[in-house]
């Protein structure tokens, strides 16, 4: 038996029995260390006859590769075995809770403003804003509600001065005037915001939210108003069918004016929008009064259009089954967490308004 074959057999069987890393390292240095068997054999190459040297070198190289491969394999086996051995005892109780964190929520009013904005964005409306403090002119007179007009009685107003010129806006309609005064027609805007009335009981809060809508162009008529609001109501309540009733009413700043009712029924103690034979008033609207256009420096002979105002809090109550308006503003963390929305729930058209 050749010397090389002997080494091979001896060490293959030795390696086969090796079980731990330490022993493997020993064998590795026995073979390939500075004075290792294989290393020494290579050193001896020069002393071998030239005619045999080539063959011997080839055999030696072959042996070296073979042994190294076996060692490498063994090495991996041992390491895997060690990891597997550790894993056997490495158990934790995954049912234990993790570290503390807080989940934030978005208020229903904000969520509904985003929903409504998304809906109107789809049909070309942009968002305008106006100040919470208004003067008498923008809140009333410019809106065709002169002093001593009984319609003012319907707006219990908070005043900021004795002369009653400065006040908290009682509706978002002053934004109509401000928007028209600072721009040129056409106008196609919505204006969500805080509004204030001196009224406080179970169903009234001294502050609430409105959404104003205004569309002025050369030939916008009441049919467009109807179409726009149908679209809105259907989208907002996310129903296929919707029953809507336009009922004549009166607002000084629109003519003809209408109030809009939606059909609903109560099913299993919950309100169901779009079906049933009960009516619920949800918004006021109409064709912008020529006097309002004049006050806003828009020529009523050339331009016309519609305006509407919706109660945002009321929309939120109807859609999300919230009963108590006053709870909206009481900041009870239990209420906020119950009715609030995940911040990642951004209402969009493509993902749907709500989950």
């Amino acid at each position: 038996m050749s010397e090389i074959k002997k080494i091979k057999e001896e060490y293959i069987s030795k390696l086969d029995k090796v079980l731990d890393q330490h022993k493997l390292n020993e064998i590795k240095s026995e073979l390939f260390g500075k004075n290792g068997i294989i290393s020494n054999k290579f050193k001896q190459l020069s002393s071998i006859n030239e005619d045999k040297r080539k063959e011997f070198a080839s055999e030696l190289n072959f042996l070296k590769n073979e042994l190294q491969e076996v060692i490498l394999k063994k090495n991996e086996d041992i390491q895997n075995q060690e990891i597997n051995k550790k894993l056997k005892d490495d158990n934790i109780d995954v049912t234990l809770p993790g570290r503390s964190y807080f989940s934030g929520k978005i208020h229903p009013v904000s969520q509904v403003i985003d929903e409504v904005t998304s809906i109107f964005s789809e049909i070309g409306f942009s968002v305008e804003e106006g100040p919470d403090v208004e003067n008498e002119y923008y809140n009333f007179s410019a809106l065709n509600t002169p002093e001593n007009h009984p319609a003012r009685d319907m707006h219990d107003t908070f005043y900021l001065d004795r002369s009653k010129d400065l006040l908290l806006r009682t509706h978002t309609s002053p934004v109509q005037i401000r928007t028209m005064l600072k721009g040129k027609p056409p106008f196609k805007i919505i204006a969500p915001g805080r509004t204030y009335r001196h009224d406080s009981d179970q169903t009234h809060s001294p502050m609430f939210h409105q959404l104003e809508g205004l569309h002025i162009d050369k030939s916008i008529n009441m049919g467009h108003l109807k179409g726009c609001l149908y679209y809105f109501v259907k989208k907002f309540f996310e129903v296929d069918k919707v029953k809507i009733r336009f009922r004549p009413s009166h607002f000084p700043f629109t003519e003809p004016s209408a109030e809009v009712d939606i059909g609903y029924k109560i099913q299993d103690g919950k309100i169901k929008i779009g079906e049933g034979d009960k009516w619920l008033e949800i918004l006021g609207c109409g064709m912008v009064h020529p006097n309002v256009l004049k006050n806003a420096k828009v020529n009523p002979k050339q331009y016309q259009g519609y305006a509407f105002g919706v109660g945002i809090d009321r929309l939120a109550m109807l859609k999300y089954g919230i009963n108590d308006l006053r709870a909206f503003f009481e900041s009870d963390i239990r209420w906020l967490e119950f009715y609030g929305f995940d911040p990642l729930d951004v209402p969009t058209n493509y993902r749907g308004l709500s989950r």
Partner: protein
Amino acid sequence: MITSLSWLKNHLATKANSNQIVERLTEIGLEVENIRSSNVNLDKFIVCKILKSQKHPNADKLKLCEVDIGSGNLVKVVCGAQNARDGLFAVYAPPGAIIPKTNLKLKVAKIRGIESHGMLCSGYELDESSDKEGIIELNKKEKNIGEKYFKNTGEKTIDISITPNRPDCLGVRGIARDLASSGLGQLKKLSSIKTNQKLKNPIKISIKKEKGQGCGIFGGVYIKNVQNKESPDWLKKKIISLGLNPVSAIVDITNYVMFDLNRPLHAYDADKIDREIIVRNSVNGESFEALDNKKYTLQNNMCAITDKSGILGLGGIIGGTRSSTELSTKNILLESAYFFPSQIRKTSKILNIDTDAKYRFERGVDPESIKLGLEFGMSLIIDICGGEASKFSIVGKVKDERKIIDLETERFSKVVGFSIKNSEIKKILTSLGCSLKMSEKKIKVLPPTWRPDIVEDIDLIEELTRIKGYDKVPLINPGKENIKDTLNNKQKIFHFVQRSVASKGYTEAVTWSFTDSKIDNLFSELKNEIRLSNPISSDLDVLRSSLYSNLMISAKKNIHRNFEDLMLFEIGPVFTGNKPGEQLTMIGAIKTGKHSRKNWIEKERNFDVYDIKNDVLRTLNELGINSDKIIVSNKKKKWYHPGRSGLLSLGSSSGPELAYFGEIHPLIIKKLDLRTDNVLGFEIILDNLPEPRKKIRETKPRFIVSDYQKVVRDFAFVIDDKYSSGEIINLVKKIDKELIKNVRIFDVYKGDNIASGKKSIAFNVTLEPKDKTLSDNDIEKVSKKIISTVQDITGATLRS
């Protein structure tokens, strides 16, 4: 405005039933708010006879009655009325009936130990009179026992909400006219009144000509030898159905005519008038006692009805007690007048009086209805109370302000979206009382005197649309074209930052824009608080100048409910002045209590300033403001802990203020009784956020990654305590902006082994070469530069 089907039918010939009428009313803009249907319940009230009435064994003031309720049924009823006696016919309400006055449902109940099956009713309980004493005594016979007491059951009262532009519908006739116009019947002609009026009115009437005179026309009729009395049944029932109490025939008649024709009348006891009626402006200080039993002191220039002795009443608002009619009144003066709406409104606002007459005059009563009112009032009074009437005295005149309106047929369809034939226009407007002159394209329209709201073509268009029906308006699907972007930059920031803050664990609150001045002052730098003239309550008396005021109130409520670990925020306006536009949009966020409470994996840990700093910094980063541009300094507001708060500003410490953060001042926490010692907060001033001129993608540099290894080296200095970590980091970064990628503080220490006034600070510096691998020499060079710079500038010593 309240009416009923039968009352409407006095003016409207119609076959429509009440459901059709109610539906139509709403369709034409006379919104039915309520239908009080009494039939089912009222049918339960029946005629009964008290067979035997004896004292209640356990109560002196109560009686135990055996009552025959018909069909051979006898029941036992406990009754408190003194007039309950054997043989009396009365009104019986069985268990289950609802008492009209109180809306309470009767039950079989034990009263002082004895079961009472139902009740014997008083007129008060049945809402028929104000008489609370005793039960109703009926003049009936045995055969009536068991009959329904209420004859008119099935009659519904209809409560209609009348918009302020429709004074004409504050009378039943106006409502009937609208119904007729809409095709639901014919408006009946008013019956003509023929009364002998031979007497001369002995009371002279005059309207003083003076500036601001509130009375346009004053008409009067003198009726002699009346016998005032309780109103007949039909009239009483009408008055009660209006929710009013019957007083006497004369008063009830004036109210009846007012509700029937929207024509307020007033009756004076003529014998109490001192010689003549003079309508004049009041003089400051004049006073009188009004029919609501209150004394009013008048200011200058209020419209007063006076006689030689002084004020009798306020024209069109309220009469006075001095000249009021009584059951004993013998001679009366009946007034039918026209008062100007603006004067009525002004006076009633100042004196805070609201009456049915005032409500009508301020909206506009038909100035042409003076005579009509006198005729109807007079003839009813003579019918019921007898007497002899004088000729009418009508003084004054009101200018007819109606204008002829040009209506173009085309304009109707342009506004409303559907077309209407000229013949329809004619039919509808005529039925509403307009006079028309038709030509092909234009129609000239004169509105009736009772419609002060119709002044221009758009008013006519509304009338036509309303009567035709809003359901005729077509539905035009909305177009999708945008005129401009949905949101402007500020609005985008608003919506983004709102969700950015919420995503860090804060729950959004929406609180009122007003707050308690005592609390707001703690968080305010305003010289003057922004007070409301008429706050809803004394603890909501100012506009907030900080979001903290209401957030603290909210936190307190929650903490007192044992929800101590809170993260709340609000985004919205705070106010800097009381003029439009003097407001800022801010975010206020607070954390109270602990980040973690005792649990198996974490130590208990309070929220701290570095939590809140991280939240606000991350929010600003997410908004697109690079950390490098945000300068942290310790500028502070008075409501923060002086040593644990800071300012984030843009570019430099004197740049635009982006946000404040820190611990809320301990004295404020104590004052507010928050029951925690740990309240932290941040405020972002959204209006100060920079408006990006470019999109983020445009401002980003080219993406370059270095293939060369980065190197991290540690340094530790002992340094004067006055140097903040931020200053040291900036100092080091500036040494080689290209190479030094990051400086991270990993230890700050004060105490043993460090001299007082000094601190040890340790940080590591990350070097990221761009063009070559750093040699030991390169690293050594930078390290030396770092050490020498820090030492030279701060006087620090290297720590070994």
